[in-house]
């Protein structure tokens, strides 16, 4: 996204050269955010949390049909991969290492190859991809991969980050591990496992800790990997309620929802985000939501990961009567008031 009042196809002048009443400033209006792209579910969670069990059960359900699985293993035994491969339509095993740092290129290559092989009819049809990260993975570089790699972002769309937390040891893990906290904070959906063997007090404490870390995420419970399979793959909601309070953590990571009642000129939001990305890109861990843009029919879905912007997408329709702009910010040491003040200042200047 640049600072001009233009973006996407409009930036390339398509609307002027080849106008169409059926298209908006961001191109064809879409029924859903992912458009025609392949949905990707990123399943993260600490070692032993139960990611593989959850995924394996999911693959055995009718909803799991047509899921290609990308697994990265940490350690040489590859036990996670062996478990999953028995039922996945296609499994790509990434090498020894953590998905976030060592094998990102492998991930890109694996996903590209899957698309090419499907196009050639060499790979069974798949309708979604599940990426199971190693326990140590920080999800943000994976999300960045889908924003940075032009070929990937045109073909794949991360629909949800699902983080699995073990009710028995999860509380302790969140205490000592920065990565575990980040996994919880960046999740769209938190799945608590082993609730049947955890004590009630540990379970309750973990739930309240997770609520504090990530007030916007849904929290679901799974016992022996059992969960409504549809919930695992459901796209993340862009409608996190505005009553979500600003949450802050010891790592300086906080989340808040920027809301606006009236339609916003695109330039106001675009230029505000330009400034934020230029000044504090590394601290914008994830920004995502619906924007009510002046002149657009449906909501415009915006998404940023650090200094990278996904192309904005205009949907055909609002999902309900609420026309409020609501954009969730997960940031490090950036307060809601600072962002709100910036947007107001830009609005006054544009």
């Amino acid at each position, binding site marked *: 996204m640049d600072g001009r009042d233009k973006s996407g196809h409009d930036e390339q002048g398509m609307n002027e050269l080849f106008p169409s009443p059926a298209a908006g400033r961001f191109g064809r209006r879409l029924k859903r955010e992912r458009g025609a792209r392949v949905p990707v579910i990123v399943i993260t969670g600490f070692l032993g949390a139960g990611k593989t069990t959850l995924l394996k059960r999911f693959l055995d359900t009718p909803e799991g049909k047509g899921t290609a699985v990308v697994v990265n293993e940490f350690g040489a035994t590859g036990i996670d991969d062996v478990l999953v491969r028995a039922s996945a339509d296609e499994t790509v095993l990434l090498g020894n290492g953590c998905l976030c740092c060592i094998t990102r290129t492998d991930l890109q290559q694996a996903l590209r190859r899957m698309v090419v092989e499907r196009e050639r009819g060499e*790979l069974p049809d798949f309708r979604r991809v599940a990426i199971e990260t190693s326990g140590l993975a920080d999800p943000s570089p994976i999300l960045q991969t889908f924003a940075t790699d032009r070929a990937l972002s045109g073909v794949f769309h991360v629909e949800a980050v699902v983080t699995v937390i073990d009710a028995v040891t999860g509380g302790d893990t969140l205490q000592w591990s920065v990565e575990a906290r980040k996994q919880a904070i960046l999740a769209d959906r938190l799945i608590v496992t082993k609730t049947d063997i955890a004590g009630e007090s540990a379970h309750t404490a973990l739930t309240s800790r997770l609520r504090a870390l990530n007030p916007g995420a849904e929290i679901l419970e799974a016992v022996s990997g059992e969960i409504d399979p549809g919930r695992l793959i459901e796209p993340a909601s862009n409608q996190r309620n505005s009553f979500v309070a600003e949450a802050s953590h010891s790592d300086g990571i906080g989340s808040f929802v920027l809301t606006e009642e009236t339609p916003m000129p695109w330039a106001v939001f675009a230029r505000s985000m330009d400034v934020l990305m230029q000044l504090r890109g590394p601290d914008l861990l994830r920004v995502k939501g619906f924007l009510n843009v002046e002149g657009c029919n449906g909501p415009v879905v915006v998404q940023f990961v650090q200094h990278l912007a996904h192309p904005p997408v205009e949907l055909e329709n609002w999902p309900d009567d609420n026309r409020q702009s609501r954009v969730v910010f997960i940031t490090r040491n950036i307060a809601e008031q600072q962002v709100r003040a910036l947007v107001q200042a830009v609005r006054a200047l544009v």
Partner: protein
Amino acid sequence: MSTATSPLNKSAEPTTWNFMLLAQNDLGGFGGMGEGMSVQIAKDGRRIIWLAHESAPKNFTAVDVSDPRQPKVVVQTDLPKPYMRSNSLELSGDIMAVAYQTQKVNQQPAGLELFDVSVPEKPRSISFFDCSGATSRGVHQLWFCDGEYVHMASGAPDFVPSHPLDDQFYRCIDARNPSKPVEIGRWWMPGTKKGETPLPRHKLDKGYRAHNTNVYKQRGDRLYLCYIDGGMFVMDIADKTKPKPISHWTNSPPYTGFMHTAVPLFERNLLIVTDESTENKAEDWPKLVWLLDARDEKNLVSISTCPLPPVDAYANRGGRFGAHNIHENPPVPTAWQSDQIVIGTFFNGGLRAYDISNPYQPKEVATFVPPPPKGTPAGAVQLNDVFVDERGIVYTVDRHTGGLYTLEMDF
């Protein structure tokens, strides 16, 4: 990094991406379909799709697609002669025009038949317009959207072509009185009539003949005429008795001819033009869907093509691989209209939808390559034509045995 090899890995996997197959119907074992598809809302409210057959023995088939998950054959008719084919049909209200072509010249019947299909189970012939002749094979394709004029690619008894393959040209038939259709205008590509300076023959030599003859109410004074090896013409038909060429565009040579369909997207000043693949094993590759900048209709500029999968992955699957028909936004109430999405059939390349919101970079958004239909001699599906109704239900047909497939768009 290592890759686990799936036990299911093999070549030519079927693919369904962002289409949802609702049903397939082999039409009673006569599932070899042509390139005529038209939807009627019958008086009793049923939704009937009328389908042309690729070749004899069947003439046309009507299918009740009120529930696209359960298509039911309503009527299926036979051609009177085994050497005939009725590859094209079009419906306007309750009147259906059917094109009759013969294998050789001087065979009868060859021409245009109009039917009253107000009772879909009982199509009733209203009239027959004879196009047979010593140098004519009759009508290959027709367009009949306004209930008044049939625009068609046809031979005529009084037209002697300079080459036997150049026998079909543009003819405009006034069908306002459907019991007595009369020709009111015609045009042929200069060089195709005996006595004119003959045109150079193409490598595959498919002929300089009219194919699609599209006319839209948004621009009733324009005809978008494809001429097989002769490229395509934008024609001025403000005076239907005197069609005049405005511009001409061709890709061949160096491409291998057989230009098939031209669909204007009026508000966007674009033209979508298709080739037809006619050779097995992709020997005429590449056969493409082309996007033309038509801001100046006198100076058409090719700006992109809709991308196809790698030819080596499809060439040997069986039958043809490459472009053919697209949904043509016919100006009728039962047809879906889009200037953002192009949906086309590519023989063994299946059915593909493209987002052309940026016409310089068409992007595939949906694919349907079903398994080879039962009994097909081609060894692979050969999707031949496509129509999308105003509900967004997609209908596509196989050229040999697969009959009708109904699908939903999911993109």
